């Protein structure tokens, strides 16, 4: 027993001691792009991303991966994981004082970026080193800022999407455009509307919050407790008016957007939502949604945001990761990604900066069949709010609506 206690005490000391010993900090000032290319090529590299969409997977596995191998002899391994999973994993690595990271590159945005910066898990600044970076539309607030936070060179924009509501054109001729119309629609069709208990639902509630506040500019900038309290109170009043007429009387909300899509597909719901405006086309093509499905943006607007690529601080393949990112933002790969038949992800490039051939190509991309053109919904685009708004909404939604 005595030995056991000693062993226990030692082990405890071992796990609770935290020394910061980042092995070899990479100082980019010492590197030219040629150095980065030379150091980065011919390596294996791991990227973590959400793998929930077959089309996105095909684009990455069958288009990007062979290209990287051919051009730079880089062997890209893609592993599944997103959002809080990435945060938990990098947090565990930092807490365990690991010398290297399991993941080199990751697909992130918004609150994940905020949390990764909070725990200082991202490498940076690095984005300005990339030759393709000058084509990125950093001036665009929907791209250059992530949830109202400055990117500061710690993540590279990769794609841009806008939230849409999806309905069935055969069943609904005139979808609701305003908060008042939504309320009366839901009252007329009880049990047929809801939103999910995850990012998509929160993004929808943020748009309502901005509408209540009287426009996107009111809540701009850093989190403001007073403004939040003032307008969120009104939001809960509105949502509680909706509640008795929601799916399952608003006592349950779908756990994620996939479940909501399922409920929409089998007719239990009249609406579903997506934070990617192109998703409706994908889902119709996959056969999940009927051909009469349409995406739209109501008058009160929906949030448009970008998604990004970050490099983990403990990665040993930072140069390789930078090389890969430079490829992912090339005009050729961005164009391919934007095709509705491939992924339908909006580009982050400023098209006017490209040569005339690519300008033409970008401007003549095949239109989507079930989603409105991007330039039409752009006018109703709302910027993301500071991450604390979402954290608070998630918490208060539970308190004020579910409990």
């Amino acid at each position, binding site marked *: 027993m005595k030995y*056991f206690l000693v*062993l*226990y005490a030692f*082990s*405890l000391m071992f*796990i*609770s001691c*935290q020394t910061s010993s980042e092995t070899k900090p990479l100082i980019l000032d010492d590197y030219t792009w040629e150095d980065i290319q030379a150091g980065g090529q011919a390596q294996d590299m791991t990227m973590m991303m959400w793998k929930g969409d077959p089309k996105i997977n095909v684009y990455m596995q069958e288009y990007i991966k062979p290209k990287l191998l051919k051009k730079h002899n880089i062997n890209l391994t893609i592993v599944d994981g997103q959002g*809080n*999973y990435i*945060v*938990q994993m990098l*947090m565990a690595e*930092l*807490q365990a004082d690991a010398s290297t990271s399991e993941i080199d590159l990751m697909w992130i945005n918004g*609150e994940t970026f905020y*949390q990764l910066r*909070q*725990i200082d898990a991202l490498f940076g600044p690095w984005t300005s080193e990339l030759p393709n970076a000058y084509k990125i539309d950093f001036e665009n607030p929907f791209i250059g800022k992530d949830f109202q936070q400055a990117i500061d060179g710690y993540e590279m924009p990769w794609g841009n999407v806008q939230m849409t509501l999806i309905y069935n054109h055969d069943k609904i001729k005139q979808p609701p455009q305003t908060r008042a119309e939504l309320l009366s629609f839901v009252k007329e069709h009880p*049990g047929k509307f809801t939103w999910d*208990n995850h990012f998509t639902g929160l993004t929808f509630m943020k748009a309502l919050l901005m509408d209540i506040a009287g426009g996107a500019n009111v809540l701009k900038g850093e989190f403001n407790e007073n403004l939040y309290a003032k307008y969120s109170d009104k939001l809960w009043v509105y949502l509680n008016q909706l509640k008795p007429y929601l799916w*399952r009387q608003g*006592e*349950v*909300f779908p*756990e994620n957007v996939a479940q909501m899509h399922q*409920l929409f597909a*089998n*007719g*239990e719901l009249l609406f579903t939502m997506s934070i990617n405006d192109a998703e409706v086309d994908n889902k119709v093509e996959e056969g999940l949604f009927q051909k009469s499905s349409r995406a739209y943006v109501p008058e009160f607007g929906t949030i448009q945001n970008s998604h990004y690529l970050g490099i983990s601080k403990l990665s040993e393949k930072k140069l390789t990761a930078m090389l890969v990112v430079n490829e992912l933002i090339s005009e050729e790969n961005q164009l391919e990604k934007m095709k509705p038949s491939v992924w339908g992800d909006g580009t982050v490039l400023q098209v006017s900066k490209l040569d005339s051939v690519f300008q033409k190509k970008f401007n003549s991309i095949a239109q989507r069949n079930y989603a409105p053109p991007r330039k039409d919904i752009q006018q109703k685009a709302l910027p993301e709010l500071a991450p604390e708004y*979402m*954290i608070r909404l*998630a*918490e208060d939604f*539970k308190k004020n609506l*579910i*409990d």
Partner: protein
Amino acid sequence: MLSIKQITPWKTALFILMLLPMLLGLSYGLLYSFGVIGLLNTGFTTEHWSDVLLNFSFWKSLLFSFGIGLISVGISLLIALWMVVNWHRDLRRGKLSTLIYLPLAFPATVVGFFIFQSFSKAGFWSRFLYQIGIISDIEDFPSVVNDAYGIGIILASSFIITPFLSLILKGIFENEHVTKFQHIAKSLGASQRQVLMKITLPILLQKAKTSLLLFLIFVIGSYEIPLLLGRQNPKMITVAIVDKAQRFNLNDIPQAYAMAILYVLFLLFLFFGFQRLAKLKTKAYA
């Protein structure tokens, strides 16, 4: 035969291998919850613990889990007892035994999904009743999954543990020679009912009580099933802890650790409390 001396180091090694990581994990959680370690913690604080202890929804989750566990084990016990008492011969071989043990092959996630597909409002039974005209709209099908009473969770848990429990009860039935005692009692003039109440059930329950407790702990600790079939309120304790740890606010992680430790304490209390109670009872009989 190994002598005691030979066994002791093995025991110690096993003890260290099993207990040490567990204790370390708990200590880690404890230090984390008090703010001593952890990336975003700033030093010792009891704030997270008071947040959890004063949080009504935490206690609600714990009680809800306990209730779901009791009901699920209760239902499984009734079914398993009934099967073993009435069908103990058929359970040994043949189609019936295959059928009954079939659920053993299902992982929890699959069972959860299966129950969801069968019993949701747009599921199999709802559509079936709609087609034959018993309900006029699939919306009229009662809420069985994602419902306030955890009916879906109970269905799925019972589905999983009933075969295990019937296996155990069947084993006891055979090992304890219950049939012999039944015959003796009958030949001494006991009625069917007396045989059941005074012989069969007491023997089976007395021998199975620890297993029952373990099944209770198993249901309380299940995660996938309540995640899929439960709802956001009331929430099973396991789901509540993971939510706290993973959903959005990194400053809530110490609270998740505090909740996890309280949960472990609750189970230990359940386990050792029960053992003590059982011992006292045995003493009282003796």
